[in-house]
């Protein structure tokens, strides 16, 4: 009999890989405020969508990032995300991208981005 898909895991979700969504329920819940954000260290709110897309709003102006991620069978999440960057006048001056490896939501706080860079367009 097929299992009922697990819904919002709540504030204290079970740990481990979700058999339906294929990602750690902790990661789908909300990311830990204070995690490294768009290449900076700021409080942030992060959404992890079941199809492998990520969206983050960080606690600074224009602090929004969009990412795509995959989770391996051992639970490690590989994330790649991008964000536009602007100068002080609001003119586009490049973009920022970041690779990150996350072992779990509990340890994400301690794991910095693998790479983080700013490039001109």
């Amino acid at each position, binding site marked *: 009999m097929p299992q009922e898909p697990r819904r919002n895991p709540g504030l204290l979700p079970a740990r481990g890989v979700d058999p339906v969504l294929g990602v750690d329920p902790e990661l789908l819940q909300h990311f830990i405020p204070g995690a490294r954000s768009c290449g900076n260290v700021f409080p942030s709110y992060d959404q992890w*969508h*079941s*199809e*492998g*897309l990520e*969206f983050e709003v960080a606690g600074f*102006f*224009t602090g*929004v990032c*969009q*990412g*795509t*991620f*995959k989770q391996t069978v051992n639970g490690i999440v*590989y*994330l*790649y995300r*991008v*964000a*536009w960057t*602007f100068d002080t006048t*609001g003119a*586009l001056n490049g*973009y920022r991208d970041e690779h990150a490896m996350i072992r779990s939501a509990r340890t994400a706080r301690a794991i910095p981005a693998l790479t983080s860079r700013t490039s001109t*367009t």
Partner: protein
Amino acid sequence: MNNQSIHHRTVIPALMIALVLGCFSLSPAAQAAGRPSIVGLWNAEFFQSTGGFLFKTHVQWHSDGLEFDINSIAPGAVCMGVFKTAADGTVHLHHVIFTFDANGVVNGSIDETQLNTVASDGNSYSGTFDEKFYDVNGNFLFEATGTLTATRITVER
């Protein structure tokens, strides 16, 4: 009267069949006509109908039929949309945007439609867009059309 009744008995079921087929011919995010899905993260570039470059965006197409776009045109320029994939593989998007003046005060909105086709390798898509600009009272201001291309952004890059 009899002719009218027969006409209604013929037309109404036909309309219902067309309606049902219409509902099933478009579905969110579905793969259609053997084409790869548009679901994912993309780097898109927009061009005027005359060919001039307009702007770039990072676009997320979600599996539930929702789309979210961060535009490079200005800080905070975000758009949200809803889309369906037709049986022929084309992706139909309806997308809304608030506009702001130089002081950051909202001064209107844009109502945009897109018609996109994902390439057979799944790594790019291209299409057309039609944007209708409105003021804060909903009065139509002007329309802009053009084309767009996009390349997929992956975890592996």
